């Protein structure tokens, strides 16, 4: 597994070429170019409205760009059917509202939709068996099997998150896209979900792209950060390189400082208390402070 997330020698799994998108509301994304190599764990970070979720939806193929192409293994997404895309790309959306009283198992089974169709007669039984294997594995692995039999709508946010993750895993994807997976979770659940995703990524050789608001979680669990601002890529690289005082101050218009993480090598982003005059250190990892 790569340690720096940047690769020039392996063909990218997902390539975004000069993609731009214009919404009638005036929102403007791009033109941007990005490539995700197989096996990477990429976090999309940036302020609200920077286009992170839009970029994720472009990657999933549910939104078409106004210009440029998004390619999966050299094939443009627009040329692939939804079914084919869903067999390789799975999305864990931020919220899922289901108006029916589906049980957890039924919701996870929905992840098999793309693989369930057009089975020839003799493959039908084998297909059913494979469905059940995939569903059972996904539920066991994410811990959703603990609420097997319960109605999805009655679960807490963290529990629902697990079930939706299980549903995405049941698709047996190569690329997993996460839209703010930690948004509604408490700190324990946040750590659980992200460490589970990291484990799964290592085990199953998934490629993961996640939109993360929390910079520290992004730095800890992802090996490549893509910082977006106003629809453009401002920085792209390992956490150390991307999380710098000056860059973050400018992009987020907030007072933050990047210090070394006390537990492991890596950056930690902390808020600066208002009112303390600091001399900003040119070296991001060294704190500088006036008494």
């Amino acid at each position: 597994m790569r340690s720096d997330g940047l690769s020039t020698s392996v063909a990218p799994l997902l390539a975004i070429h000069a993609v731009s998108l214009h919404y009638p509301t005036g929102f403007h994304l791009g033109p941007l170019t990005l490539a995700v190599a197989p096996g990477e764990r990429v976090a999309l970070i940036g302020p609200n409205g920077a286009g992170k979720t839009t970029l994720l939806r472009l990657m999933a193929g549910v939104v078409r760009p106004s210009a440029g192409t998004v390619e999966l293994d050299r094939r443009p997404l627009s040329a692939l059917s939804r079914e084919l895309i869903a067999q390789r790309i799975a999305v864990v959306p931020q919220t899922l509202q289901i108006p029916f009283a589906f049980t957890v198992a039924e919701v996870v089974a929905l992840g098999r939709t793309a693989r369930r169709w057009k089975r020839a007669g003799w493959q039908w039984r084998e297909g059913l068996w494979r469905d059940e294997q995939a569903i059972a594995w996904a539920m066991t692995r994410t811990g959703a099997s603990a609420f097997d039999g319960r109605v999805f709508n009655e679960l807490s946010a963290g529990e629902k998150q697990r079930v939706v993750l299980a549903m995405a895993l049941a698709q047996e994807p190569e690329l997993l896209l996460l839209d703010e997976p930690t948004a509604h979770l408490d700190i324990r659940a946040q750590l659980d979900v992200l460490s589970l995703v990291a484990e799964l990524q290592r085990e199953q050789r998934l490629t993961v792209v996640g939109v993360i608001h929390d910079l520290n979680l992004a730095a800890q669990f992802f090996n490549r950060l893509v910082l977006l601002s106003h629809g453009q890529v401002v920085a792209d690289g390992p956490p150390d390189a991307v999380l710098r005082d000056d860059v973050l101050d400018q992009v987020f218009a907030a007072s933050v400082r990047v210090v070394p993480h006390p537990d492991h090598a890596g950056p930690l982003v902390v808020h600066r208390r208002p009112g303390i005059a600091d001399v900003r250190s040119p070296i991001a990892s060294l704190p500088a402070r006036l008494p």
Partner: protein
Amino acid sequence: MTGRRDDGAIEGAALSARGTIALGEGDGAKGAVPPRSPRATSTEIRESEGSSLSHRPVSPPSSPLSPRPVAPNPPPSPCRTHSGTAGHGVRSVAPSGRGGAGGRLVILATLVLVALLAGVAFGAVGIPPERTLAIIGGAVGLAEPVGGPDSTILLYVRLPRVLAAALIGAALATAGTLLQGLLRNPLADPYAVGASAGAGLGATVAFMLGLSTVVLGFGPVPALGFVGALATSALVYRLARVGGAISTTGLLLAGFATSAILGAAVSLLMVLSDPLVSRLRQLVLWMMGGIAVTGWDQLPIVAPAILVGIGLALRLAGTLDALALGEEGAAYVGVDVPAARRSVLLLASLLTAMAVSISGLIGFVGLVVPHALRIILGPAHARLLPAVALGGASFLVVADLLARTVIAPTELPVGAITALVGGPFFLYLLNRSRQAYAF
């Protein structure tokens, strides 16, 4: 001109004696819906496959034939309460009629048969059971053919009517389920995208014109009712497209608005049109809903059409399940949402139009039956759709039976019976869920 015939009057006129009122099995059949059991108990634990799961972690292969390398035993997630979960079977959404669900379908199928028998056996004119059997046996060829007025009533009035009721009930319930699944709205029924208003306008025009041509067994009223229903659904679909994309909210709103406009047109015609004055009562009776088949004329076309339609609906079960995730959620799991929307709408519109053409506007079947069965069987459409078809058939056969027999020989409009049952049931549904209403 084919309007709704007062079958009770026909049956009463065939025999000079008054018919007897017998309710008997009718009520019992309607009430015999299996009680709801907690849904959690229907999750099965399958030991044979479970044991393999607990010892060997199965990692999903990358293609159907070539497995990915299996990782060593993954560490248990820190949050998981390990209760032998690896051994849990998972309830399949496939239509394999497992355990309780399969049993319930059998119960429903039996219910339909019982309802059909009751519908045939009872009516405004009392026909003793042994005579009923003799007549049917004669018709099928098991015994000598039997003649007489009650044979005519049974074979040419009652039997087609009861079969039509079953088909209409199944069609309306299926269409209602399709639309509820597509629009994700608890108030969606087969008429949500304008079919009822369109059929009403078509029937009004037919009555106005006063034609008497019959094409393929369909008079002007059923034919124009069918055309009106389909045309309005297409119109609503087209209207909802304004703005590039179609959303479910757009469909509902366009349906509502179109229904209002067409309903106003019907009212205006009723008041202003001279030819309608003499036929107003018939038009109103048609709109209140009632099984309006003339003998076996329409069934050869309607029956296969509805059965094929219901069969096609069963194939959409997986898509409907996925649509519950929302339009974007469904796209994420691989559903081509615009195509699915078109298919579901087309099928629902066809089923509704076929039903409406021979029954007028019978409400509540398409609304209440899906809800009730969803509570009993769960929302998975693979199980729900066949159940809904059977349940709708029974419901309408029994409602029609009541309509014919409660105040024989006068016939009550079936739509009133279904509303009298459906309305309180809906209030009951509202009452039972104090928390967030997930239907």
